[in-house]
């Protein structure tokens, strides 16, 4: 008979490390999807996920069980991704002069006929990835959670451990930072 999550966690806490494996198996897809929002190279993504699981194992004693294990795990995952962003701040120098031809074409189309520039185009995705790579770690985290994943301020506060006013301030700054980057990109391309 399959053991419940609570039983598995209790077994791990009693010293049966093997009981942790079913939890890793069950939740790894979610953790991988989260990590892929913040890192591109597969080796980096695997390192992040591995780190999340190590932390989860070591801090399992702090899991009180009043909220689902998944929520607790996702908080750990988001915080680990944020640590990763902070640790990899290099290479954030603007490289808008290196836009690919499809990206340049997409931007040209946007300038001449904004409605014809399709959001579903690969070039648009490459452009937003380029912009996201150049945002500061808090800005990238906030834009991802708030704008791309469409989470509420309260949810973000819970996931990041930041206060609600801090989330709001960082969201405001993140949008401004993004607009500044877009302006720079436009300037590099058209001036």
């Amino acid at each position, binding site marked *: 008979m399959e053991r419940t999550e609570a039983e598995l966690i209790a077994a791990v806490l009693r010293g049966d*490390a*093997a009981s*942790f*494996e079913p939890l*890793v*198996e069950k939740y*790894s*897809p*979610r953790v*991988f*999807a989260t990590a*892929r*929002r913040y890192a591109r190279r*597969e080796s980096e993504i*695997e390192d992040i*996920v*591995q780190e999340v*699981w*190590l932390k989860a*194992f*070591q801090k399992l004693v702090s899991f009180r069980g009043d909220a689902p294990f998944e929520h607790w795990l996702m908080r750990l995952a988001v915080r680990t991704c944020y640590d990763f962003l902070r640790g990899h701040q290099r290479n954030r120098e603007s490289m808008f002069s290196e836009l690919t031809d499809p990206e340049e074409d997409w931007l040209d189309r*946007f*300038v*001449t006929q*904004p409605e014809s*520039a399709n*959001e*579903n*185009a690969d070039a*648009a*995705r490459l*452009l*937003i*990835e380029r*912009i*996201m790579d150049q945002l500061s770690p808090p800005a990238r985290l906030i*834009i991802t959670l708030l*704008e*791309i994943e*469409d989470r509420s301020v309260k949810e973000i506060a819970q996931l990041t451990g930041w206060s609600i006013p801090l989330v709001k301030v960082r969201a405001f700054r993140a*949008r401004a930072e*993004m*607009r500044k980057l*877009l*302006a720079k990109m*436009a*300037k590099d391309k*058209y*001036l």
Partner: protein
Amino acid sequence: MVGMKLPELQKKLISAARMQTVSDRVPYAFEKRVMAYIRSCPAVDVTALWAQALWRSAGACLAVVAVLGAVSIFTPHSQPAPGDLSQDFEKTMLAALDSDYFR
């Protein structure tokens, strides 16, 4: 930059990011790798870490006590000057309790 509407561009790029599906693919036997990694890492003994920190701080506290003791023993004691601020302050604070004050 002429004709470039930045707020609209921002909106378009954000919706491009939203449309992008993120893969949740897990590499083959990843859970085995994670378990091997966990087993290879030394377990964190919170009690041991706490005891270690306490011993370290105890050493530092003893050093401070020894220095202060030496200073108080080897410093010549002098009478407080008549206009000593600490004496005045103490007198003011304890004025309500000092019965002589009201006589």
